[in-house]
């Protein structure tokens, strides 16, 4: 079941207002929807499942990889189903309508066509139903690229460029990754360098501990939507929520005004921080991953300012500072 991260749902001055950088994220999985006979049946079922989370007023919903054709027995070729990257096609049009009606972003993974080539893509549709950007899977499986030449009209996809963009939304920077991409770290590293705060992972396979690793390594939230499960992974590398037998979606209110710090020496500064800021800050010690997350629960307080005041470094800052000293003293 979904969680409401306490820091985010804490009422401020008794009012149930969202924090400035609080984002409600949701995702659905494909479990129980396959095998399916027709593409139309699949799309209808997916839209039904998405309606289940609409009442949460999510800022963004992530959908599974190639949700309209994955494990659907109706035989359709890629050219028959591929959509444009910028203008709505038959499927993206329906998802865009949902996005507009529910005032949320949607990660909509479909085949796309551009410059005569086909891609396994995720399109980001914004709150107005407009396509805000596209991600093309950079590491498709061999069989997606090299199709069976004995099958008439069978064409494959080509791998996306290695420098896929992050996309600015009205709540922060997001990046996307698709399925088999998870076996390489280059796509994730590229998104981190561009400042992605949330990575949306649409996939056939769930990813398991790989996603916990990438979230921790890249200090970002990961929202996954797959053939087996849907999850929300914290920047500390720990699961915040996952879909379950009776609820095939996941959600959480996450706070982007939050950082990962090392457990030591951050632990030594906590009492002073508590004394000054009390519940205006949220601190969680994740012993399992050796991380302390610190977040602001006050709309007027920036977490970076608190860190500066107490001379606490984020993990990334600590690494940079240490490398300078190590380099100076190394032979």
């Amino acid at each position, binding site marked *: 079941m979904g969680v409401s991260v306490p820091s985010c749902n804490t009422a401020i001055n008794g009012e149930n207002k969202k924090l400035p950088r609080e984002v409600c994220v949701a995702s659905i999985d494909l479990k129980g929807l396959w095998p399916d006979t027709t593409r139309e049946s699949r799309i209808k079922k997916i839209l039904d499942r998405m309606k289940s989370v609409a009442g949460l007023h999510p800022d963004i919903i992530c959908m599974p990889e190639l949700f309209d054709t994955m494990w659907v027995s109706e035989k359709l070729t890629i050219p028959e189903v591929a959509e444009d990257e910028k203008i709505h096609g038959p499927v993206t049009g329906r998802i865009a309508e949902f996005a507009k009606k529910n005032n949320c972003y949607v990660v909509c993974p479909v085949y796309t066509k551009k410059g005569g080539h086909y891609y396994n893509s995720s399109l980001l549709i914004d709150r107005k139903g407009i396509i805000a950007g596209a991600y093309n899977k950079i590491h498709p499986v061999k069989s997606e690229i090299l199709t069976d030449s004995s099958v008439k009209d069978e064409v494959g996809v080509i791998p996306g460029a290695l420098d896929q963009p992050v996309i600015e939304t009205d709540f922060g920077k997001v990046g996307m990754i698709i399925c088999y991409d998870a076996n390489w770290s280059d796509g994730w590293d590229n998104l981190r360098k561009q400042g992605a705060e949330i990575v949306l992972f649409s996939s056939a396979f769930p990813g398991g501990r790989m996603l916990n690793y990438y979230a921790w390594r890249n200090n970002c939230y990961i929202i996954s939507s797959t053939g087996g499960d849907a999850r929300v992974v914290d920047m500390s590398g720990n699961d915040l929520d996952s879909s379950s037998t009776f609820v095939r979606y996941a959600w959480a209110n996450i706070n982007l005004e939050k950082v990962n710090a090392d457990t030591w020496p951050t632990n030594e500064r906590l009492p002073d921080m508590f004394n000054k800021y009390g519940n205006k800050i949220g601190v969680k010690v994740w012993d399992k*991953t050796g991380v302390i997350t610190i977040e602001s629960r006050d709309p007027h307080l920036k977490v970076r300012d608190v860190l500066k005041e107490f001379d606490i470094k984020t993990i990334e800052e600590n690494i940079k500072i240490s490398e300078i000293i190590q380099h100076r003293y190394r032979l």
Partner: protein
Amino acid sequence: MNTIVKKANRLPREVWVASISLKGLWPEKTIEKRIKDVLERMESLYAFEPDIICLPETFQISWVDEIKTLEEIAEDETIPGPVTSRIAEVARKQNCYIVCPVVTKKEGRFYNSSILINRQGKIDGVYHKIHPVDTEIIPETYYKGGGMTPGVMRPPVFKTDFGTIGMQICMDASWFANWSSLKDDGAEIVFFPSQGPFGDTLVHHAWFNHYYIVSGTGEDARIIDISGDIIASDGEFARWVCAPVNLEKVFIHIWPQIQRFDDIQKKYGRKIRFKIYHPENWATLESLDPDLKVRDILKEYDLPAYDEQLKEATEIQSKYRLK
């Protein structure tokens, strides 16, 4: 607790690895008391006839009240010094390797090191912590009489009589290149003496690089599988671990290889063991038969290991990606 398998009955590439934690042994007043406590804790391991034991980082001085200068405690890297020689004596008597983490001195510089002592009690090699904490490096901050010099960026690997091993120490866990380098150089087991336990960080380094990790820290002792699964961990009633790891084991991506798993299992029955990691789409395959090599099975069924599959996939992707 593992059933003890005598050396004569072990599989050819079955290695019994062990480690101890320092939990419950600190704070301590004197260095001598600490050494005695560590030696006593090691005694629980000998009945298992371990091939190698990992001790915690700078075990003789971590959280010990007695302060000595680096000059006073630093040991030689080739000839056993006062502490190393006592550990070497255990190695010789128990016929095992020992990862012995001490401060060493070389050409006038001090290092936070792990010395590898072999079954004869001789020093086989040394690893210098690549990423010491700032306070360790800057003289007179954490240590009296100097500071630690960070080791060279590419960590060495060591050939033992059971396989290729590497070592990492404590804060090294927060970097990635050093762990990848050990994999590239063929490490099959990485030993991790540390003060901090580093939780899932070690789990991730293990699966990401497909080698076993054995940790001996100030807080815990663990043996981690090439999949990231915890094989053994210490606890309240036993502050040590000892378990077999099978180096005749390979990491596989299950797709499309899984289509052949049934055939392989039918042919080899109990001579092999598959373990499937469903969410990650991985599997491990190991040989439980002294005459069967896992690589031969992969070859027989024309299946790639995980790294081979990714290498081929990368080549195809590069070929078809628009320039």
